[in-house]
């Protein structure tokens, strides 16, 4: 059962992996900062820190109460004799949560970092025009309601996890490291925010051109990718142990698949950009790297390394073309490429699990509340994954759009025209990220 204790080694490995996971957030923050213009770099980092802080506090106060952990108290709706577990009813403020190395306590710790990561994703899309106050408000709602609700369905014994037990669809919806609950949810929130904010001033000209607005620091972007890799090792391994019954030794396969998927995705992106533009593009290669990590999050514990390479390659290809498609054809101004990388990369990962996963022996959707069926082939797994994608698009996207639309009515998301011209650093923080670039008149006064 999921709530049974972990072995000493399992617990130690899990804690180590959970403590690695904040590096994924650090990596994303650096990537978002690097992909923006220098006049908004400090603002992005400040917003990232604020988002992580608010997400942690709000999740502690309310989020875990709605998300819960498998086997805990929950509201269940009965339809045609089947129980639909739709939301947890744990006490707020972590009351009654055993913080002693039990799986539920470890899951709560992991989730605090996961919700912060999900909330960081929209920052890349709203960069250079999304006010700090509105960012914090939007994050509070995401951490209190949107994330916990969907994460409960996937990881907390909710109805998606129980699709196998209730309707014979494989092992139920599976997601090892948060491709759906973190990345697609964050990516769809990014899409909603981008729609509401509109494009940056000057992004689309009247003659139909969309000039590229390059990021200001490729070093930050690429270093962010390396940090993110460590964070993903932690997220994927901890998820495999806590939610999919993986033994600590399974972390080897998980880490191997994670790096291989990222490597294949980034090289595919580099190759495609080299062929198309004559030189490999650093920002698209970095986006490919992250898309590979995102895709690996869903499948890393259930595929062999060669399949991880294929999954990563496809993720890299999807991202390279979709970033351009979103920018030029759909006129969605997404400076960080978050929609393509996280939403599309995540959806691909979820579907890839349905296509490629192998289950040897009794597996392991512990989130469903039982070590389920697993006949080895897990027929119907792909349908469970498809229903998960339909839920993200048909429920999470309209809900997150609606919430942010209402928030925007009361607290306008977009900064003033003057603020955008000036840059978010000076407008919202009163100081730039790189003050030494400003020439002060007193520097020339003879002393």
């Amino acid at each position, binding site marked *: 059962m999921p709530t049974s204790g972990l072995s000493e080694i399992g617990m130690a490995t899990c804690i180590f992996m959970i403590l690695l996971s904040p590096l994924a957030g650090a990596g994303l923050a650096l990537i978002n900062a690097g992909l923006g213009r220098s006049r908004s770099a400090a603002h992005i980092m400040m917003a990232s820190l604020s988002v992580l802080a608010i997400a942690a506090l709000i999740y502690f106060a309310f989020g875990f109460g709605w998300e819960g952990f498998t086997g805990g108290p929950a509201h269940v709706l009965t*339809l*045609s004799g*089947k129980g639909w577990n739709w939301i947890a009813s744990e006490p707020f403020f972590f009351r009654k949560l055993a913080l002693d190395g039990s799986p539920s306590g470890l899951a709560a710790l992991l989730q605090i970092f996961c919700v912060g990561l999900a909330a960081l994703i929209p920052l890349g899309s709203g960069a250079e025009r999304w006010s700090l106050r509105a960012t914090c408000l939007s994050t509070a709602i995401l951490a209190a309601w949107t994330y916990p609700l969907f994460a409960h369905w996937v990881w907390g014994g909710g109805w998606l996890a129980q*699709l196998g037990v209730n*309707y014979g669809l494989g092992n139920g919806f599976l997601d090892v490291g948060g491709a759906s609950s973190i990345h697609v949810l964050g990516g769809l929130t990014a899409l909603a925010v981008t*729609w509401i904010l*509109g*494009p940056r001033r*000057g992004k*689309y*000209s*009247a003659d*139909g051109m969309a000039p590229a607005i390059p990021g200001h620091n490729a070093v930050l972007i690429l270093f962010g990718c390396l940090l993110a890799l460590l964070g993903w090792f932690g997220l994927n391994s901890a998820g495999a142990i806590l939610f999919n019954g993986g033994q600590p030794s399974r972390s080897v396969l998980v880490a191997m698949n994670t790096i291989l998927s990222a490597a294949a995705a980034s090289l595919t992106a580099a190759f495609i950009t080299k062929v198309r533009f004559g030189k490999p593009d650093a920002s698209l290669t970095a986006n490919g790297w992250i898309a590979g990590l995102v895709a690996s999050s869903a499948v890393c514990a259930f595929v062999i390394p060669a399949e991880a390479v294929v999954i990563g390659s496809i993720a890299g290809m999807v991202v390279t073309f979709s970033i351009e498609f979103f920018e030029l054809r*759909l*006129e*969605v101004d997404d400076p960080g490429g978050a929609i393509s990388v996280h939403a599309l990369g995540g959806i691909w990962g979820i579907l890839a699990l349905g296509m490629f996963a192998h289950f040897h022996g009794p597996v392991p959707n512990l989130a469903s509340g039982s070590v389920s069926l697993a006949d080895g082939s897990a027929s*119907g797994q792909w*349908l469970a994954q*498809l*229903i998960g*994608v*339909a*839920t993200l*698009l*048909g*429920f999470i*996207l*309209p809900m997150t*759009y*609606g919430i942010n639309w209402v928030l925007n009515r009361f607290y306008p998301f977009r900064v003033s025209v003057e603020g955008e011209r000036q840059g978010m650093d000076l407008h919202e923080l009163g100081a730039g990220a790189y003050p030494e670039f400003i020439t002060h008149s007193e520097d020339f006064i003879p002393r």
Partner: protein
Amino acid sequence: MRLGDFAMRFVGFMLLVAGWLLALAALVILGAPVPRAAFVFAGLAIEILGLIFVFRSYSIPREKKG
């Protein structure tokens, strides 16, 4: 915001929700694997149509570019 855009956006979001409900209904009502899968695919197709509507409603009018 133009009224046409608002209507298209509203219809788009309604289609997204309708597609999801169709997929859920297939789970509850249909037992056989093939019709169930067909209805889930139909639900996803409706969602994609809804997405197209919403994206169209957000395309930027020429006079507003720049």
